[in-house]
């Protein structure tokens, strides 16, 4: 077909030839959509890394006194020794987890609001990426990316802490045996991963879903729109029925549900894995209801994005 020398307007058949059917898989579109989120919201990885770096800086200063403290700790019984040694490692994990939770909340509130505010939604919608792919890629940040990132950063931080302590102890001629035997780094990491997946991803899913829905709906002040209705329901319930079931439900959700109690009360001590009950958690109605609610919120956010333009 010599379209080059043919001055006659092409027939529809020929014009189909110039556009070969190219296919881009759904996974690839999803991959690029998630990367896009990481380009836009760099706080996703900068915040936990910065907190980890700050913590390590503080920890480094603290290691000056480590040999003295270690000598004192050797006189303690094994349980106290264990607590003394483990404490800063747990603190590091809590700090980084707390940071990424805050990052997740603010990310969700801006996820579907920012693109409408800066009008870039018109650019994103000009590309063949469905609303569902966009919303799911955004939801994957708090549900998948942030928990895994938290895990990686925390484990890396804890390893650096261990290496620093080892170097300092060896430098001052002390044995590292107590440190290494009393620090169950592998079970701790396993428990951290379980905690992140169970609480931060699965249990908190409806929280992220709600925040994303509000961010797709609110024209401004997404944070207020996310918080005020919940507060109103609580107040109305209190006035009308003099009960506070709604508030209790929210508190239960935020505190981490059945598993959260184990973590806060036991604060990850001694034999953490024995306290966990993954089987019980997986069949708890609270988790499944939460996931269903999260799915409903996200489905609503997808539907909403179809109708939404710039604000």
């Amino acid at each position, binding site marked *: 077909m010599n379209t080059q020398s043919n001055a006659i307007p092409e027939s*529809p058949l020929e014009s189909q030839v110039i*556009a070969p059917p190219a296919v881009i898989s759904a996974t690839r579109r999803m*991959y*690029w959509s998630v990367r896009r989120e990481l380009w836009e919201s760099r706080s996703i990885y900068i915040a936990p890394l910065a907190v980890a770096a700050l913590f390590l800086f503080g920890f480094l200063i603290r290691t000056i006194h480590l040999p003295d403290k270690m000598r004192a700790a050797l006189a303690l019984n094994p349980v106290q020794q264990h607590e003394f040694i483990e404490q800063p490692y747990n603190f590091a994990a809590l700090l980084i987890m707390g940071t990424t939770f805050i990052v997740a909340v603010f990310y969700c509130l801006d996820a579907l609001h920012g693109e409408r505010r800066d009008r870039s939604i*018109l*650019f994103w919608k*000009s590309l063949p990426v469905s609303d569902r792919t966009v919303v799911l890629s955004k939801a994957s940040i708090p549900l998948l990316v942030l928990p895994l990132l938290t895990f990686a950063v925390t484990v890396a931080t804890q390893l650096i802490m261990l290496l620093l302590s080892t170097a300092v102890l060896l430098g001052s001629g002390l044995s590292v045996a107590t440190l290494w035997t009393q620090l169950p780094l592998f079970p701790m990491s396993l428990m951290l991963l379980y905690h992140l997946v169970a609480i931060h991803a699965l249990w908190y899913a409806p929280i992220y879903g709600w925040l994303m829905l509000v961010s797709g709906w609110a024209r401004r002040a997404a944070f207020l729109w996310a918080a005020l209705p919940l507060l109103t329901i609580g107040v109305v319930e209190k006035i009308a029925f003099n009960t506070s079931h709604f508030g209790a439900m929210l508190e239960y959700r935020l505190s981490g549900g059945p598993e959260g109690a184990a973590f806060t009360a036991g604060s990850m001590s001694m034999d953490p894995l024995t306290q966990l009950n993954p089987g019980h958690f997986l069949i708890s109605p609270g988790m499944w209801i939460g996931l269903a609610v999260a799915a409903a919120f996200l489905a609503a956010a997808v539907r909403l994005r179809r*109708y939404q*333009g710039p604000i």
Partner: protein
Amino acid sequence: MACIEARGLRKAFGTTIALDGINLRVEEGRILGLIGPNGAGKTTALNAILGLTPYQGELEVLGRDPWTEREELMRDVCFIADVAVLPRWIRVSQALDYVAGVHPRFDRAKAEGFLTKTTISRASRVRELSKGTVTQLHLALVMAIDAKLLVLDEPTLGLDILYRKQFYDSLLNDYFDRSRTIVVTTHQVEEVQHVLTDVMFINHGRIVFDCSMEELESRYLEVTAHPERIAAARALKPMHERQVFGRNILLFDAVDRQQLAALGDVRTPSIADLFVAVMGVQAGQAQGAAR
């Protein structure tokens, strides 16, 4: 097959009717200018065509329903909504990576080729670029997509005259061929006049004028009448009459050129003059109907 076909396209926002039963047909390979005053329904019509807004009535774009098949449609349709929609945080290299990652018809080498003709650096963020260069970047991205329909909504809004001219030149020279269709809305009518193959005027949600440029040139004539011939000219029922520097300029629809040449200097009217005339006729009819 028509590229765009609408029958009885309606859209209302509350009590405001944005599109009042539009019928239109755009054939493949045309460059259509959709021209109308602010609030006439241009952007709503484009949004319906692009599947950005639900509508009533029938609408087919490249044989698809834009609202229910938007994702599939966007593989063959490109649009530039206006100059300010590229996200400000994105780097030029990231924009290229992303579009290449999600668009099956994007030719990255072509986009890079367009960009080398500009001063845009790959490492810059959009927020660091001037308005004109952001448009160049957007155009480079869009022109590298092998789309069948390109929709431009006020693409040159707020740009200086050099960039505006450059924009339409590269669109015609580097992008357009007869298998593509372009729909453009703009207020800078003079600049697109030589670009268009068809023109439509839209007002109060209705298409009030629909004409190809060839037809426009053969049908409509503008006469700068000799002062003593004004009465004779008016007898031929001009659509519109205006005064420029004390001379009367009359616009005629389907009046013989020879006949008009006797009355004064004859030329093809600009789209802008025709627009004013058509809108004037519209207003007159509306007043007549009100009485």
